[in-house]
């Protein structure tokens, strides 16, 4: 994955009455990017955890996420 060029992450926050809509755009991947595959599983989990943290004060802990992160770190 280190051989892939950097991609781009954009966070957009919009006030919608008493709520805030957060939109993440992660683009600029090359065709067949391995990072893209991992990112596609990672972001939903990160955002879900962020929402739990903001609304309930605790982050999520997912065993599968730890496992995948460890595998990617070792690769």
């Amino acid at each position: 994955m280190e051989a892939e060029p950097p991609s781009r992450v954009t966070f957009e926050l919009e006030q919608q009455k008493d709520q805030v809509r957060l939109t993440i755009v992660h683009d600029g991947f090359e065709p067949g990017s391995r990072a893209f595959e991992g990112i596609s599983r990672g972001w939903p989990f990160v955002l879900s955890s962020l929402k739990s943290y903001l609304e309930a004060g605790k982050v999520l802990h997912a065993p599968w996420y730890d496992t995948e992160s460890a595998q990617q770190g070792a690769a």
Partner: protein
Amino acid sequence: MGGADQQRILKALLVQHRAEIRLEGPLAVRAGDGTTTDVGEILEVDRPRRLSYTFHHVLSEAARKERPTKVSFNLEPHGKLVKLTLTHEDFQDGSVILDGISKGWPAILSSLKSLLESGQPLAIPPSALAIEGFEGP
């Protein structure tokens, strides 16, 4: 525990978007005033792991002309958590409902998560669902 949580999420999911789903035959999604906004047919029920159904938006004439799409929910236990994956597919080229769906589902899933974790769903502001080039309810 995973199974019980999956059942709880599935039940909340159905209540959340007011789907009258008997888990067989036809289904209808209604707006708060009782207007039917979407209809479909149950395709697959595998409690508490998977639910899929066809989805046909019927409020606008343009949407009615499109072929029905397909919605699938997959629920997988991961330790103490349940991972819910929603897939909505089979949109035809130039679909007029794809933009609305793309704004609606994140709001519904976000509201579902609030409901499950804090007991309160989000009141989704209509402005958050403003759809370009489409006359909503």
